[in-house]
């Protein structure tokens, strides 16, 4: 129990550090520049408190419950020596962590609302929820495949730019045949998925894998996983826009 409380306190401090600069910047602009009172200040303060507590619990829970098992599993699968299970695990890790990513939930919900107002989908709650879920599944699928690809890259020792540069070129080409309303959401989806849950879990797999293979340097080969995870959702969401 002491352990839990100590972690909570540490993570509360970290969440404060995360939130404080934003609060300061907003306060500065409101008070000094705009010279306006914030409307519904009470609700916003409660909401901010809810973010602070939510982030603290969320991150503490991840570190206490999920990350240790996730890392342990990553090591077990690396040492198990079965490529099939390693790749399946890699896919499931990427997929599952993207679905649990709060930033992705928030942005896909907004994207769905904007799409319904813009007449891309029907303007009712059912259509909005469906679109938002499909968007998240598309991104999660892409991240799952990326983690698999990232594992293969580390096993084979390919330089990262061999994957990233063709990826960029692919994004450019697909952009020209995509509907213009999907481009913004697609380009944003890369940054959105690589956040609180995905980054630590996926990095743990990459670094664990690179350190267990002879001739691979965990620092240079272990990184690069996130870059692939940030690139492939762009391609996937562009295709999602074309198909829709």
């Amino acid at each position, binding site marked *: 129990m002491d*352990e839990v409380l100590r972690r909570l306190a540490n993570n509360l401090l970290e969440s404060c*550090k*995360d939130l404080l*600069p934003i609060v*300061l*910047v907003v306060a500065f602009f409101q008070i000094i*520049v*705009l010279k306006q009172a914030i409307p*519904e200040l009470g*609700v*916003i303060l*409660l*909401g901010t408190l*809810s973010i602070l507590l*939510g*982030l*603290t*619990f*969320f*991150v503490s*829970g*991840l*570190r*206490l*419950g*999920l990350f240790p*098992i996730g890392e342990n*599993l990553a090591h077990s*699968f690396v040492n*198990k020596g079965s490529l099939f299970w390693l790749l399946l*695990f890699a896919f*499931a*890790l990427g997929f599952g962590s993207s*679905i*649990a990513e*709060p*930033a992705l*939930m*928030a*942005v896909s919900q*907004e994207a769905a609302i904007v799409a319904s107002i*813009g007449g891309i989908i029907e303007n009712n709650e059912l259509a909005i929820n469906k679109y938002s879920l499909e968007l998240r599944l598309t991104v999660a699928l892409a991240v799952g495949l990326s983690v698999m690809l990232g594992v293969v890259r580390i096993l084979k020792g390919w*330089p990262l*730019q061999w994957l990233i*540069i063709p990826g960029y070129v692919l994004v450019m080409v697909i952009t020209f045949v995509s509907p213009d309303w999907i481009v*913004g*959401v697609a*380009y*944003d989806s890369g*940054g959105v998925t*690589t*956040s*609180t849950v995905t980054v*630590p879990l996926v990095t743990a797999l990459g670094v664990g894998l690179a350190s267990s293979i002879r001739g691979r340097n965990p620092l*240079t080969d272990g*990184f*690069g*996983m996130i*870059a692939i995870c*940030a690139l492939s959702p762009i391609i996937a969401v562009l295709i999602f826009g074309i198909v829709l």
Partner: protein
Amino acid sequence: MIILESFISMFWDIAPIIGMILIFQLFIIKEKIPNLTQTLVGIFMVWVGLALFIVGLEKALFPIGKMMATQLTSPDFLGKTQLNWNDYYWVYLFAASMGFSATIAEPSLLAVSIKANEVSGNSIRVWPLRITIALGVAIGIALGSYRIVVGLPLHYFIIAGYGIVIVQTFFAPKQIIALAYDSGGVTTSSVTVPLVAALGLGLASTIEGRNPLIDGFGLIAFASLFPIMGVLAYAQIKHLINK
């Protein structure tokens, strides 16, 4: 009440990752879960935390982002009715200061900077690197806001950016490339993403002639692209100086 609703709906969002970890642990690796109580407490905390966080997003972060976008671009505040792109300087300044301050405080960025320092054999220093990345995000979000104000297509900027990154990749020291590419994803935290997204959507719905559907998104793409350029440039300059 809202928190309870959020709590119930979050079940399906965390179920895949937890289910998959349990299945792999129990049936494939066939090991018991070490520290079962701690794991269960952790899972419960993830669940509660996520529910609170999502409520807070809807009640605070999204409204703040949209409100700031509306207030900073209102003709009343700017004291003019005919507005050119350069009249919106407060928006660019707000975007840049938010990008800089949120990034410099980002815990995962510190971790990446320390790794970069190790990889480069101490030639890349932690603080200058953090400032470089934070400046990259600041410039990125400000430029992204400018794009929304003038209504240029997003892919002009991003494709040009990719072009620059590709050229930089050929000249940058090899051991820094993976880390530089990763830095783009690392800077966009769960707090920054919704706020920046709301800022973009707010701008696109307030400024005349802009459509949130076409112009509203894309700020996060800027925030992920510029740190890559920044880290590659910093490593390249360091490399040249040390020669």
